[in-house]
């Protein structure tokens, strides 16, 4: 029942907000998000206690063997935890702005949460696809209704690009599903694992491509990233947080949940290519990030670089690679949301994101500077921050896989430091510029979001074991399938 609550509660509240447009939308959506986070917390605690996955199975379309089945194991658990946690901060970050009591805005965010939860919990492949696609609609409306410059064209490109990719996933899924035994077939993910692994190497190769294109566009991986910087820049801050913090994890989650267990032979053929593309993304994204003038765009490219490393790590198919990817998804989600929020705070006060116009904020807001630095260091992967644990494990897995790849991917640590430190220096330090002279202190609401996020960065860096242990069992199950 708990699973159903987690899945449908945000949907109900979101629909309520959209239909009735109440005045106090902020209070309603924030309490919904907190309640959701609590319920998710209880569920995760139960999974951790019993070390068993929690499932819910109900018939959906029995004629074609499609079930409404949900499953929360260690891997899903980390992602629903991330989703529930970040949503409270994302909604919290709208406090005291004109968007806070905008019922449509809050409603769409909650609908988005419901769809993403569904994708992370789905045990049936078509249910996964269903939510994978459905999550696009709220974010599309959010971005093109409340976005910035040239939003219509940019979000439209984003929409068509992603749907185009997921259609390949769709036919790939149908292809495997039709080869499952029984007259009605089955779309249960575990049945698909067995069926897909028995396919010929050639078929697996093509299927790998079909699946990977969908997820690569979602993440995005080089060269499918062209929608991403524009969309991240033009979306409203909360939209960008949703996109970068949680939605791209649907792509990485899809690789772990579907591609790795289903197509070991397919990865054998195309895995190297995919890893090379991911690593190209790491280096390419970092180099472009270094040259950005717009802070939000810089973060967009940094996010692109980070997800490349996650992708490269998990495609090594090793226990460390997948564990590191999961851990880094969590850290990246927390860090990137914090960083985007800092940029929004700066933009609220100065109406600008241009690095050249900013500077000297540290003289007016000490708390902002400290949390910004903590979050940035998490993003740079300094020891004692959560980013360090994730990147370290990921890089180790890539080194184990291939020494050359490891060295090239390792450059990310240097490049990441360059663009992040440049971001800090240009915004926080240096001379006070014309527009930052009257930079007001952080409000209580802003502190309530930034300080906990910074604490999570440090906690994740000091006590990683709880989380690594939480997902280990489920990841082991997947890696054992490969032997």
């Amino acid at each position, binding site marked *: 029942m708990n699973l159903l609550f987690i899945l449908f509660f945000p949907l109900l509240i979101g629909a309520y907000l959209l239909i009735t447009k109440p005045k106090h939308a902020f209070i309603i959506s924030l309490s919904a998000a907190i309640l959701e986070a609590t319920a998710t917390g209880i569920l995760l605690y139960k999974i951790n206690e019993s070390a068993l996955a929690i499932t819910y199975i109900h018939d*959906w*379309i*029995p*004629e*074609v063997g499609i079930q409404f089945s949900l499953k929360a194991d260690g891997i899903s658990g980390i992602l629903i935890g991330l989703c529930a946690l970040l949503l409270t901060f994302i909604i919290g970050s709208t406090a005291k702005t004109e968007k806070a009591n905008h019922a449509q805005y809050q409603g769409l965010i909650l609908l988005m949460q419901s769809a993403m939860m569904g994708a992370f919990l789905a045990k049936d492949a*078509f249910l996964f*696809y*269903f*939510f994978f*696609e*459905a999550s696009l*609609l709220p974010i599309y*409306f959010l971005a*093109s*209704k409340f976005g910035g410059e040239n*939003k*219509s064209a940019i979000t*439209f490109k984003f*929409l*068509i690009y992603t*749907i*185009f990719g997921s*259609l*390949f996933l*769709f*036919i790939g899924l*149908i*292809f495997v*599903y*039709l080869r499952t035994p029984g007259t009605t077939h089955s779309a249960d993910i575990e049945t698909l694992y067995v069926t897909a692994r028995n396919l010929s190497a050639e078929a697996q190769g093509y299927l790998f491509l079909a699946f990977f294109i969908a997820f690569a566009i979602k993440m995005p991986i080089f060269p499918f990233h062209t929608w991403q910087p524009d969309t991240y820049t033009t979306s409203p801050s909360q939209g960008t947080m949703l996109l970068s913090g949680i939605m791209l994890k649907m792509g990485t989650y899809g690789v772990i949940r579907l591609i790795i267990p289903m197509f070991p032979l397919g990865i054998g053929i195309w895995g190297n290519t995919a890893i090379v593309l991911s690593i190209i993304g790491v280096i390419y994204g970092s180099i472009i990030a270094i040259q950005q003038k717009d802070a939000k765009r810089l973060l967009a490219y940094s996010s692109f670089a980070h997800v490349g490393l996650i992708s490269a790590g998990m495609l090594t198919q090793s226990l460390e690679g997948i564990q590191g990817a999961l851990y880094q998804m969590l850290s990246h989600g927390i860090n990137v949301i914090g960083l985007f929020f800092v940029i929004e705070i700066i933009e609220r006060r100065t109406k600008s994101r241009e690095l050249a116009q900013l500077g000297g904020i540290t003289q007016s807001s000490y708390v902002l500077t400290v949390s910004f630095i903590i979050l940035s260091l998490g993003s740079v992967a300094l020891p004692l921050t959560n980013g360090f644990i994730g990147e370290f494990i990921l890089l180790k897995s890539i080194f184990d896989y291939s020494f050359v790849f490891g060295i090239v991917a390792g450059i990310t640590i240097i490049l990441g430091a360059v663009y992040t430190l440049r971001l800090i220096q240009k915004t926080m330090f240096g001379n006070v510029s014309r527009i930052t002279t009257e930079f007001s202190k952080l409000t209580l609401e802003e502190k309530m979001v930034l300080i906990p996020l910074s604490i999570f960065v440090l906690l994740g860096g000091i006590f990683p074991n709880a989380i690594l242990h939480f997902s280990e069992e489920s990841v082991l199950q997947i890696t054992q399938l490969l032997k």
Partner: protein
Amino acid sequence: MTAIIALSLFGISNLFLGFWFPRKVLQVLTLLFLAIGMGLTAIDWNHELLWFGNMFRTSNTSINFSLIIQLAAFLVVALSRGFGADDEHTHPAEYYAILLFSVVGAILMVSFDHMIMLFVGLEILSVAMYVLTGSDKRNLKSNEAALKYFLMGAFATGILLFGITLVYGATRSFYVSNLANIIAATAPESMPSFLYIGVLLMVVGLLFKVSAAPFHFWTPDVYDGAPTIFTMFMSTVVKTAGFAALYHILSGVFGGIYSTWVLTIYFISMLTLIIGNVTAAYQQSVKRMLAYSSISHAGYMLMTVSANQISSTSTILYYSLSYTLATVAAFAVLIIVSEYQTGRKEKPEDYASFEGLAKNNPGLAFCFTISLLSLAGIPLTAGFWGKFFIFSDSFNRNIIYPVILAILMSAVGIYYYFKGIIFMYFKDGDIEKIEVPTLFKIALWFCTIATLALGVYPNMVKSLF
């Protein structure tokens, strides 16, 4: 079967009732007639029977098709408003009567067991449609459309009839069940070669009716010229009946010589997908866009026909239903908006007419959005499962390339369907609150809710098919 007798009688009585009653009363009466027709159709459920000298067969499949057709007609009648500026100079009684007659023709087309029955049904349906297309007498475009439709349609029917003749010559039978047995029993080499020409001609005649490329040239002009309410009828009823007949012929009669016709259908479906979708993307007018979208949906449905699986019948049924619901809703909103914009905008049927619709008319915008999403095949709507069943059928037959093409074309489809959504939600316009009659509202919301319900729980009807 009693349904076709009843509906014909109702149609005739409608002609007389027109002397005494105004349009609104006739509308309610016609709705009642169609409801009775649906009831009479449903009575035959699970009774496989032959009627009229074994020329007409009722089976669960044909009943399902008949119900979808009558549901579409029911919705069209419920959504019909005045047929022109004043009811004095139009002839509502005649229009409603002709609608009922054409429904009879469509039911014959989905239940024939004899080739002549197919021809009769097709003619009843088509002649009725020629009249309705030209019903806006003072509009030049409507007249042009009617003439065009009539000339092309008559030609296509002639081709169909020629095909029937050749098939009869080769097999000495008109009966569907006989034909299938004869074809199955005869070795392909000993079959006279003009049988294949006959099959091809019959298929061409029917492909014309379902507007598959390259026989689609009439579609945009006729859809555009006809009054929107009859375009709605044409794009749903004619298409459903046409596909039922086409599939019945190809699979039921000529299933034994699958390998001879499959390549033709295979390529026609690909061509239809490309032409329908790519041309739709260039349209400025929503009405013409929907016309091309109807061509593209013919392409998707032809994929199932070429797959020829056991499940294909239920796929066509499901797809027809989801397509009907979505198309009816889309045209209904178009009617309301274009009526509002007449006089305000130069071209009331263009995308530009929808600018800012969502602001003061969130209900209408929502219904239009859901119908477009369903046509685009996005999850949560009926159209998604329609595509799912079609792709499954095609993969079962190892049809790979058309599916990949269909995927590419779906992406194109998303472009032009979402254009409507963008115009409604993200552009500024000055549309005030539009008053919508109650009956209209009920029918519109029925389509929208049914589309969503079938999208979330397709089993609701899938288990019947």
